[in-house]
């Protein structure tokens, strides 16, 4: 009976995944969109970090897409709340994020950068 209980606990721990027990807090990043800029336009995160982006608009509806990731959402118009998207930061590198919904004459200026750092490299620098 004791063996069966131990086995069940071990199985449950395995099924919970590798980050169970090492609950790193989810990082919330707020981004504001307005013709024709994102603020901030550069976001720095660590690889593997869980990110929750809360994006709102100060005017019309915009798109928010991070190239190379599955993040691709519509930001509602001003006064209609924000869109929240949660994802795990990908491999270290530079990822462009951009508006994907035509928003005016300067639509293509509306871009930014997600800079993903290697956390171990950062620690070694410290």
């Amino acid at each position, binding site marked *: 009976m004791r063996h069966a209980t131990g086995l069940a606990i071990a199985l449950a721990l395995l099924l919970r995944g590798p980050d169970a027990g090492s609950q790193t807090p989810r990082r919330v990043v707020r981004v*504001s969109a307005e*013709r*024709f*800029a994102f*603020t*901030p*336009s*550069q976001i720095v995160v660590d690889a593997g970090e869980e990110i929750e982006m809360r994006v709102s*608009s*100060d*005017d*019309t*509806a915009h798109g928010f897409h991070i*190239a190379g990731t599955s993040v691709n*959402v*519509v*930001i*509602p*118009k*001003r*006064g*209609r*709340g924000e*869109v929240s998207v949660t994802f795990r930061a990908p491999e270290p590198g*530079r990822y*462009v994020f951009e508006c994907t*919904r*035509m*928003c*005016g*004459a*300067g*639509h*293509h*200026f509306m*871009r*930014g*950068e997600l800079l993903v750092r290697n956390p171990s490299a950062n620690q070694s620098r410290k």
Partner: protein
Amino acid sequence: MTTQNMKFGSSICIWLLLTSSAALAQPAISEGPTSATGPISGYMDFHFNKGEAEDGVLDFHRFVLIVNHSFTPRIRFVAELELEHAFIEGLEESGELELEQAYVDFLLTRSFNVRAGMLLVPMGIINERHEPPVYMGVERPFVDTVIIPTTWFENGAGLFGEIGRGFRYRAYVMAPLNALEFSADEGIRNGRQKGSRSDVRNVAYTGRVEWVGVPGLTLGASAWSGKSSFLAPRLDVQVRVGEADVRYRRNRLEVRGEFAQVWIDDAERLNLTAGQLTGVSPNIARQLRGFYAEGAYRVWQRGPGRDLVGFARYENFDTQFRMPSGFIPLKQFDRDAWIAGAAYFPDPDIAVKVDYVWQRSLSTVVIAPNGFNIGIGWWF
């Protein structure tokens, strides 16, 4: 303003407000995070203008369609086709059909991207940001009309990008202005070649730097320089335009300001040459200057994205700020204006606008007319 025209203007205003309010009074329709949009975007601008001692005019001022296409994620195309004043008739002054933008972007890095085709000159607040819901007033500011000739577009190519810490830039080489078309009252406006077989014996260089490092704040500075006398080879008319602007929004308040100045070298010979060609001296200045300051306050907010904004703007603009020697400035071109009004947004993409313009000039002979305007503009 006659009683009849006043009644007509008031009727339009009431009708617009009732229509937009009635639409909002309908039971809430479930909608997604945003309204639907198709492959074509654009904006429209429909106005009623009533100048003092003039008949009222109903004008479908702008009908603009924007199309875009991505060849690849890094190579994209955008075009903006504009029909002004609803109707075009050959050889008569009526409407205009303009290709205001048609370019291909090659998106390389955050700081370095290439653009070529028909481009907007990166100058001032309005020229690149002219959708009706984003500015106050039925008509665009005077400074952005007679000092900076919006919408100012031309063939060219150049670079753009963001260089970190909130700094963004555009730098283009473009076709120049045609100085022989400059005028006393509208400055360099009629000198735009508008990308129609533009003469590029000389070229112009233009650029803009913006800082958007603080939420709600945009600081910008723009410059343009080009030899503009290609039709008269012995002239050497270098034209330079300098501009600085600020926009700041915090909670319900938004303020903006702009200063622009134009320098025209060799304006004396330009006047003499133009006078010989046409028989009339255009009396073109060697410097033009204009500035404005505007405050807008969101006085009422109700429901999702429904707002009423009140605003006031002061403008000072002089298309004969400094004259070449031997030429006298006409006082009627030294003008200023107060514009006060309101904009109701039944949706963030629709603006129902009302304003009144008090215009003055230093002339006691030629009186600048006051005016009453109503408009509805929308982006889709």
